[in-house]
Every structure is written in structure tokens, then in C-alpha cells.
């Protein structure tokens, strides 16, 4: 831009010089005319003409162009501001709805958590109950099994003693050569115990 300005300045200087030379020649060279060239030359009628046309323009354009244009611009501005306002309203409404939905969502989450917790608690409770029940049943089964085992052992013991007594009696019968009754058997055992006692006492003394 600075270069252009410099060129422009040089050319302007040149042109002014040229004008001066030209005017000098024109004033000196014309046949009897000594008309001086003046860059400010003109006529008052030009000013009046310009003002008249400008007044016509102001009136006509003002009425037929600028008035409808301003009306259009205002209508557009109103339309845009209306659109902006409605958009803001919608934004506000959307924000409120969002808040509502977020609230509902939070409530739903809370409810969900509550329900889940409730169900978990119930499940845990039921589980605990089932476990307790199962454990008590198991204890009962174990107790019953022990009882059965004890009874079986006792009956086995009883039958074993009977069996042993029978065997002893049959062996004693075979050895002695006579039938030994349980009373005889008892007497023989007592007798044997007494002898053992005696021999044990004499042995110690």
C-alpha cells in the first residue's frame, strides 16, 4: 500500500506539473484567449442541479425504496427476535422437562434401588430361613440317625450277649457233658470270680 501511495504521489506531482505546463501553453498559445485553467472551475448551476436531484432522490427513494426496506428490515428483526425468544422459551421448557425427567429418573433409580434392596433383603431372609430350616432338618436327621445307630448298636449288643451266652452254654455243655442253664452259667461265673479273688488276695499277701 505504501508503494502504491508513493507511485500515486509521484504521478500526482507529475500530473500537476503537466497541468501547469498545459495551462501555461493553453493560456499562451490560444489565439488571443488568455483563459486561465482552474481546477476549481465550475458553475453555480451545477450545485443547484445537484441539490435538486439529490432532493428528488431523498424524497423518491425515501418513499419507494428505503421505507419498504426499513419495514422489511424491522419485520425481519422482529421475526428473528421472535424466533430467538421462542427458541429461548423452548430451551427453558426443554430445560425444565429435562430437570423433571432427571428428577423422575433419580426417583426411579431410588425406587429401583429400594425395590432391589427389598427383594435382596427378602431373598436373604428367605435364604436364611431355608438355611435355618435345612440345618434344623439336617440336625433332626442326624439325631434320628444317631438314635437309630444307638438302637441298632444296643440291639446288636443284646443279641451279641445272648449269642455269646448261648455259645458259652453250648460250649460248657459240650465240655461238661451236661446241659447248662443260664442259672448254672451264672453260678459258674460267680464261682470263678470268687476263686480269682481268693488267689489274687493270697498272692498279694
Amino acid at each position, binding site marked *: 500500500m505504501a508503494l*502504491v501511495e508513493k507511485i*500515486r504521489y509521484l*504521478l*500526482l506531482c*507529475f*500530473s500537476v506539473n*503537466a*497541468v501547469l*505546463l*498545459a*495551462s*501555461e*501553453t*493553453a493560456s499562451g*498559445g490560444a489565439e488571443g484567449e488568455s483563459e486561465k*485553467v482552474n*481546477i*476549481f*472551475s*465550475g*458553475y*453555480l*448551476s*451545477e*450545485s*443547484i*442541479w*445537484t*441539490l435538486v*436531484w*439529490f432532493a*428528488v*432522490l*431523498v424524497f*423518491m*427513494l*425515501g418513499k*419507494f*425504496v*428505503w*421505507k*419498504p*426496506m*426499513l*419495514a*422489511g*428490515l*424491522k*419485520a*425481519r428483526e422482529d*421475526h428473528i427476535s421472535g424466533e430467538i425468544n421462542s427458541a429461548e422459551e423452548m430451551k427453558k421448557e426443554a430445560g425444565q422437562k429435562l430437570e423433571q425427567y432427571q428428577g423422575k429418573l433419580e426417583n426411579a433409580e431410588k425406587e429401583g434401588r429400594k425395590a432391589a434392596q427389598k427383594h435382596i433383603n427378602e431373598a436373604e431372609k428367605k435364604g436364611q430361613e431355608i438355611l435355618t430350616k435345612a440345618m434344623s432338618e439336617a440336625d433332626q436327621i442326624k439325631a434320628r440317625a444317631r438314635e437309630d445307630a444307638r438302637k441298632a448298636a444296643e440291639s446288636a449288643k443284646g443279641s451279641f450277649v445272648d449269642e455269646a451266652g448261648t455259645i458259652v452254654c453250648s460250649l460248657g455243655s459240650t465240655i461238661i457233658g451236661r446241659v447248662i442253664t443260664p442259672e448254672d452259667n451264672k453260678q459258674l461265673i460267680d464261682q470263678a470270680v470268687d476263686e480269682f479273688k481268693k488267689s489274687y488276695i493270697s498272692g498279694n499277701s
Partner: protein
Amino acid sequence: MKFALATMNPLEEVLSKKLFSFGGFVFTNHMVMVAIAASILLIVLPLTCGKIRMIRTGFGNAIETICVFFRNEVVKPFLKDQTDKYVSVIWTLFFFILSMNLLGMIPLDKIIYLFTGQKNHIVGAATGNIFVTGALALFSFIFFHAAGILENGVGNYIRNFCPKVPGPIYPLIFLLEVLSSFIRMFSLAVRLFANLFAGHMMLAVILGFIFFFKNILAATVSISFAALISMLELFVAFLQAYIFAFLTTIYIGMAIHQDH
């Protein structure tokens, strides 16, 4: 050198030429240009922007874009609430000056010569005439004072015409303010005139080199350079119209809001 320049007078292109006079009322080529520019505006603008439209297309859209820029970026910051009251005058001023500047860029006399074969001076750059720019500056001067009086009342306007200063120097400051308002008008007129005048003169001088040197190289360089300078002049045409309208807006703003 002197002779060559004299035969190709650059002022030929710029100065106003008397066409005829009608009862003391002189009619010049620049008056033709003023009338053509105004007529173009009176035909083109109502056709393109004459209806209320929410969305404009084509040339009307370009015009409206310029108008909206002026209204929102130039006038509104200075005139605030009174923008729509005065903006139409600012728009008219801008487009009128711009159309005259752009018409001045078109070598209409040469085009007429090509078609008719007759030398003529019925066209030219109207804004390269101090009487045309002076008239517009005079309108601006009257308009901003009128706006100030209209908005503040005559008494208030004169009372607040100059800033609050001690009594003894008040007359001097008042006189300076009056002088400065006249200088504003003068500067408006001269700025537009000088820029356009110098631009056209420069183009005439550059093209004059062809007749001075009379060879193909000079012609090539001259025409290339003239084309480049024409681009710059095209920018200047828009810029000067904008500056004139912008300064008028500032002056109206200063007259309306005297407290600032």
C-alpha cells in the same frame, strides 16, 4: 515536452464543460452525469428493493447488504435510537455519490466516439467537480445542523453548541466551533473532489504517455498501469462515498447528542 503535454491536456478529462445555457442557467457535462446517476438510482433501486421482502435475492440482496451494514455498523453507534429517522438520507447520500463515482470511471465519451465517430464532452466525472461535491457538503452541513436543532430545540442547540468553558473565553470558543463546522463542510467537499479529480487526472496522464512516446512499449506499460490504477480508483470510488456518508453520520450524531 511542453508541447506534447499541451496537446494532450489531462484537464480535458476532468474539468466541467459548458454544453448550453438556458436563460443564464448554464448546463454542463457534469450535470448530465448527475442526472444519469440519479436516474439510474431512481430506476434500479425501486425495481430491486421496492418491495418488503424477508429474504432478498440478486442485486437487491447486494444493495440491502450495504444498507444493513450502514444501518447497524455505521449509523446505529452514533445515532442510536434516532437511527431509522436519518438512515435513509445517509443511504441516499452514499448511493448517489457512489453512482457518480462509478459512472465517472466509465469512459462514456470514448464509447460514444466509437459509435458515432464524433468527439464529445457530454459526460465526465461529476464528483471531480468542486461545485458538485460542494453542493453535497452544503446539504450535509445544513442537514446536521437541522437535525441538531430538531432534536434539541434552537435554544438548547445554540447553548450547547460549544463545550462548557469559563465566561470570558466563551465567545472565542463559540466562534471556533462555528468555524469548525464550516471547516467540516469544506473538508467534506474538498476530500471527495480532490480524490476523484486526482485519480482521473492520473489516469489521463498515464494514458497520455502513449501519445507522448508513440511506441508500443510505452502503450503497453501505460495501459497496464492505467488498468492497475483503475482498480485502485474503483476502490477509492467506494471508499470516498463511504467516508462522505460516514462523516455526515458522525456530524449528525455530534449535533444530536451534544452532551457527548
